[in-house]
């Protein structure tokens, strides 16, 4: 639905539905922190950003470019072939039958995640903060130029 919708706004709304479904999977897998972060960051912030940009640049259907039919078919065939190969390769995988547990374990809680994040992963955490700062500066610089 994200791919085949003609209207970009519909596409964004379907993507929000997809993200809610993925968040539901996180909740089922007892990753509560990631559930909340996924809802807030993806379904909230990023999708609002997309909607905002789409409304800002005012896309209507006649700006949708003409597509070559064969190119489209080739893209779909390529994606389908990749899926076929991956499924065939992983069908007989070694870990067949291993269980991803529902409703158990507390590694997804903020307390445990935070302890690991601020002890073992504190350097990547700081680097990601620098990345965010540079992304913010970059976005402002790109957007400012007329």
């Amino acid at each position: 639905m994200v791919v085949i919708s003609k209207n970009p706004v519909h596409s964004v709304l379907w993507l929000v539905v997809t993200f809610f479904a993925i968040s539901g999977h996180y909740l089922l897998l007892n990753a509560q922190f990631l559930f909340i972060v996924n809802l807030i960051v993806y379904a909230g912030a990023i999708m609002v950003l997309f909607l905002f940009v789409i409304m800002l640049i005012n896309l209507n259907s006649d700006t949708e470019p003409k597509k070559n039919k064969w190119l489209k078919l080739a893209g779909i065939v390529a994606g389908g072939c990749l899926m076929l190969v991956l499924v065939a390769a992983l069908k007989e995988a070694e870990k067949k039958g291993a269980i991803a547990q529902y409703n158990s374990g507390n590694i997804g809680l903020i307390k445990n995640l935070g302890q690991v994040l601020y002890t073992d992963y504190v350097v990547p955490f700081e680097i990601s903060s620098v990345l965010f700062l540079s992304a913010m500066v970059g976005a402002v610089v790109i957007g400012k130029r007329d």
Partner: protein
Amino acid sequence: MKIEYYIFLSIALFCIGIAGVLTRRNAIIVFMCIELMLNSVNLLLVAFSKMHYAANVATNANAGIDAQIFVFFIMVVAAAEVSVGLAIIVMMFRNTHSVDINFLNRLKH
């Protein structure tokens, strides 16, 4: 829930994203398909994290927690990427009045 189901769901989401990137010309939709692919990887990481946890919880109570930290970092990077990418798309629209990525092939000339 068996891990295969998560693997196949992630493969399906990822391939839908690939097909979208290859078929659509609208830059914003290409961008959303990239988000879709990132999310499929996140889902697979969380599923593997729980699988690892279930296998190793007897020896290590924190088994599998690394994968969830990685998912967190992937989300961080995705958020930064979206902010910069949307700024680029807006700038491109200002210059060309279109979001057709085929306009970008004049970088060739």
